[in-house]
């Protein structure tokens, strides 16, 4: 076990990516991801990391370069968020269809307008249908662990998909935390060299990314979907292997005090840590509240989540994004959970709350307010979603 040191989370992520012996980094700096890219460029410039750093002119080019690099068999990393993610997004669908295990750290940030550089999950949700595996972290140690895991998961020949490591912008990316960074030898033991199933090689020419006309497009999508569906148990298997070596056990869905809970908060990202304190406070007042936190948003672990929340009478579902669906259906995270509940004929009382948008803090008081709101509402009284902590 490596001794924790005080380090900014962004720098720790960059260090971990460097220790994973990445071959190519192609990225464009954007707040609040900047320190990750800056530090990687320093590591390369100072000779600490033997990698090609491609200082591209846009995120669109960053992902294009990553696709070429990964397709040639190089271990490839990029990082972005928000508007940068939006600009690169069209390439992200291609990276997953071509089964290229690129790793991307996303320092989650709101999308404009109004222009806002602060944290919410707009970019995470924007990315959800691109066919990437989406991992979430709740503190600096987890961001480092997920960065290492992302390469191992993505590059596993049974997986072979690109992986996003989500860390909340500023509230995580710019915070100094005690973090244990495994050394190069430990990481090398966990992360074998990348052996692509197929790569661009002049000796054995192949065409990647060809046109797929109506007679084959459906089959291509079906094949990709089947391969993606198969990743869920493999991710848990790799989490278990990580636990065996490093002692930190991750799960697709993790829980906090849910065993006897009649009220469960479902959350993702570092707000979970605030929710833990809120739950402790509420438990001290005799309220049976717990948390189910989603570690992997894609593939969506519906069975594991239902297992964690099926005993609850009241559910508090967070959405850290506005989805503008017209007001009659919930936000994106709540929609998925409600769909999973419906499929299993479960109908707890559900409150869906839009919180923590564009960097607004989610406080313990907010959480208690939501729990109270659902507890006191009659069935059928709760709207599809509501804003919390908004000035009326």
């Amino acid at each position, binding site marked *: 076990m490596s001794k924790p040191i005080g380090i900014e989370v962004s720098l720790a992520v960059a260090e971990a990516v460097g220790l994973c012996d990445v071959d190519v980094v192609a990225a464009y700096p954007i707040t609040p991801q900047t320190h990750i890219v800056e530090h990687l460029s320093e590591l390369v410039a100072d000779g600490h990391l033997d990698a090609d750093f491609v200082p591209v002119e846009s995120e669109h080019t960053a992902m294009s370069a990553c696709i070429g690099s990964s397709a040639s068999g190089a271990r490839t990393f990029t990082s972005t968020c928000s508007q940068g993610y939006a600009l690169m997004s069209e390439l992200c669908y291609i990276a997953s269809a071509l089964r290229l295990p690129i790793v991307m750290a996303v320092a989650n940030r709101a999308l404009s307008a109004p222009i806002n550089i602060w944290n919410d999950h707009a970019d995470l949700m924007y990315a959800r249908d691109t066919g990437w595996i989406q991992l979430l972290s709740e503190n600096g140690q987890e961001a480092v662990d997920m960065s290492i895991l992302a390469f191992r998961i993505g590059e596993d020949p049974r997986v072979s998909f690109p992986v996003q490591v989500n860390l909340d912008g500023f509230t995580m990316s710019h915070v100094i935390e005690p973090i244990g960074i495994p050394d190069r030898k430990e990481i090398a033991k966990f992360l074998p060299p990348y052996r692509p199933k*197929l790569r661009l090689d002049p000796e054995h020419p192949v065409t*990647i990314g060809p046109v797929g006309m109506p*007679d*084959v497009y459906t*089959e291509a999508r079906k094949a990709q979907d089947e391969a993606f569906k198969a990743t869920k148990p493999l991710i848990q298997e790799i989490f278990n292997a990580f636990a065996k070596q490093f002692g930190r056990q991750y799960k697709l869905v993790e829980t906090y005090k849910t065993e006897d809970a009649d009220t469960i908060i479902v959350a993702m990202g570092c707000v979970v840590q605030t929710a833990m304190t809120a739950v402790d406070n509420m438990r001290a007042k005799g309220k049976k509240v717990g948390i189910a936190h989603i570690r992997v948003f894609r593939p969506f672990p519906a069975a594991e989540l239902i297992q964690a929340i099926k005993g609850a009478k009241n559910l508090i579902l967070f959405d850290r994004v506005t989805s503008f669906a017209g007001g009659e259906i919930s936000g994106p995270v709540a929609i998925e959970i409600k769909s999973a509940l419906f499929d299993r004929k479960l109908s707890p009382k559900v409150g869906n709350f839009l919180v923590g948008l564009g960097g607004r803090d989610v406080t313990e008081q907010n959480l208690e307010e939501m729990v109270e709101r659902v507890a006191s509402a009659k069935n059928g009284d709760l709207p599809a979603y509501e804003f919390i902590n908004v000035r009326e």
Partner: protein
Amino acid sequence: MAKETGIKSWKELNFGIAITTPGNAAELKTGDWRSMRPETDREKCTKCGQCYIFCPDMVYSKDAEGYYVQNYYWCKGCGICAKECPVDAITMIQEVD
């Protein structure tokens, strides 16, 4: 399922939808895109080869008598050959199902 790609099931697709047999574009049947078919009137044809030169899809090849004949497996019916023929020997004929 399409004969052109030869794929009967999604399970047969290559990893990452890659094409591992380069140079196979000639196998792709583009002829079924066609709504008009070029036909050559040999009475008018001077065997000049303009149709062969202008065809964007290598449809024309020379036969034993020196005439340029169409391979309808690839012909998309674009009509460039009929437009370029200096003696108006090529007519576009409506395809009927």
